[in-house]
């Protein structure tokens, strides 16, 4: 596929948090991936893998200090966002790229009515009268399944799932080209999760947006995504089409993720959790970051930094075993 279809292209992004008088926290280390138009990309990894930092970097909202984008580029429609002016970024945020945050309980301003909070983004990005904005907001509320008579209600009058709908309405109000959803269902009940995901899928089709879906739930990835990027300790360890990742899982970490998923292997009745913990991002080991927890670990793994190997078309793996071509 040609470059013009790429809506977002992240190259070699490195983001560290540099708190004074403490060792640097290496959150994101040389991450590259692309999102094409209309595509949903799942960014998978456990807590602390650097997923949210990548999302915030795209919007240039990494808190600074202590956060600092050290190198790389984030091209959105061919423009490097890391070099854009703050004023230009404000125009992009909320209109061309918008974000759904993880925790709906705290992401809404408690003193503004939900209607006004959606209207805020409408007013910022389109020149329209109060009445027009109100109509637009009411449309959005109905779209996410909230009665428009609740325009003047406040966040404390809504349940968690309803608040997340408000946040989704807010994120989609200006029909963004790219929607970043940071664990949009983590804080919700399982029954509500399915509803919210279905709704996101519908809206995405309706508006034709691309989606960067951050999650640690492979079930959600299976349902929603076209492409998958698996992250570990701030690095991409495996990425490719959903089919090839699910069928030909190559990296021991990705295998471990599937092994810890109930129902992934119906023939075994025991879960196989990954032993140990992710390394401290302030003290990353040399070589493969997953080596300490990996059952296939060899001396080679710790000797040098491992690069990404293309094991089949568009399917990349960062593992010594894949380099030999005899991937599992």
């Amino acid at each position, binding site marked *: 596929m040609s470059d013009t279809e790429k809506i977002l292209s992240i190259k070699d992004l490195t983001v560290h948090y540099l708190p004074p008088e403490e060792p640097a926290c290496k959150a994101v280390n040389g991450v590259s991936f692309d999102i094409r138009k209309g595509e949903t990309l799942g960014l998978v990894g456990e807590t602390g893998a650097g997923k949210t930092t990548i999302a915030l970097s795209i919007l240039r909202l990494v808190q600074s200090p202590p956060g600092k984008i050290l190198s790389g580029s984030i091209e959105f429609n061919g423009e490097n966002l890391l070099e854009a002016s703050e004023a230009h970024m404000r125009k992009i945020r909320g209109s061309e790229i918008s974000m759904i945050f993880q925790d709906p309980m705290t992401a809404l301003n*408690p003193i503004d009515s939900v209607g006004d909070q959606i209207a805020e983004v409408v007013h910022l990005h389109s020149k329209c009268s109060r009445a027009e904005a109100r109509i637009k907001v009411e449309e959005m509320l109905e779209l996410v399944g909230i009665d428009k008579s609740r325009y003047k209600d406040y966040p404390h009058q809504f349940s968690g799932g309803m608040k997340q709908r408000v946040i989704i309405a807010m994120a989609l109000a200006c029909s963004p080209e790219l929607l970043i959803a940071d664990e949009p269902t983590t804080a919700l009940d399982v029954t509500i999760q399915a509803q919210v995901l279905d709704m996101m899928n519908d809206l995405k089709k309706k508006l034709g947006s691309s989606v960067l879906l951050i999650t640690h739930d492979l079930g959600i990835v299976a349902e929603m995504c076209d492409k998958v990027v698996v992250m570990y300790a701030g690095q991409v360890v495996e990425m490719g089409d959903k089919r090839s990742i699910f069928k030909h899982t190559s990296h021991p970490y990705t295998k471990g993720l599937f092994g810890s998923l109930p129902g992934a292997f119906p023939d075994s009745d025991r879960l196989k959790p990954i032993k140990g913990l992710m390394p401290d991002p302030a003290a990353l080991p040399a070589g493969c970051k997953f080596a300490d927890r990996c059952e296939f670990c060899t001396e080679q793994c710790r000797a040098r930094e491992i690069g990404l190997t293309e094991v089949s078309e568009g399917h990349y793996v960062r593992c010594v075993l894949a380099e030999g071509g005899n991937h599992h």
Partner: protein
Amino acid sequence: MGRYILKRLLMMIPVLLSVVLLIFILQFITPGDPAKLQLGTDATNEEIENWHEKYGLNDPFAVQFTRYVWGIVSRGDFGNSWRNGQPITQEIISRWPTTFLLAILTTLVSVISGTLLGIYAALHRGSLGDAIARVIGILGISLPNFWFALMMILLFAVRLQWLPVSGFYGPLYWILPAGTLGVLGASSQMRITRSAMLDNINADFVRTARAKGQEERVITYHHILRNALIPILTNVGSRFAQNLTGTMILEQIFAIPGIGTLMVLAINKRDYPQLRASVILVAATVSVVNLLIDIAYAAADPRVKATFKSSSGNFLKFKKRAG
């Protein structure tokens, strides 16, 4: 909301009654005979006895107390001054506006300067400006206000001669007293604002607002400051109460004819009715200001408003629906 205000106004009655009772008891058990002070040292026993009889001091405590409260409730009469025999209500009404104006001005100075300084310090946390603001904050609580007032007089009235030394005849005379007490009061306002802003500055909804593309100015004043308003408003209330009593000392220093000078005079002369009336007035004002602050909470935060509605209106609504 109306029912809530009514309820709060009714609740002020027991509060004020307790204030009256307390000060009555204190004055009753204070040793010394006020009559001797009023009549002079060469008064005969008979004269003193007559004086006691005239002001009802020979009656039992309960009778004196009931008569006093009844006088206020039925006729708005706070009695006559023991010092000069004049009706107290008039004197207080004539002096009250001065003290009230001074307290309002002082509160305005501390609230405006303290809030702005607090916002600045919170936004520039860790900078030199923040450090200076915090030093000002500590100075404000540690400097005695009478000393600070004298220094200000020395500087602006005596040395530079920009402002009058004392009196209360127009806006030019307001600047030094209101400025002095106001600047000292600004320190607590500054600290409260700074910490309330910092509580909200990294809130998720602030990040949401940034992700919408909102400008920093709107984020600061609308999203952060408005969510920090509850502790700030609380402090405005206590600042006003402190300023109302704080003017007692400043009125002496600046020779301002307000309630403060009257109270000091009343204490020196054991003019109990006069003192009682002043204390009741101050207590009533503070109660009303606290009520206004509580109403302001409801305007600032819809969650508070919801609790007002549920605590006062539910039963009525229920009755309407049932009927």
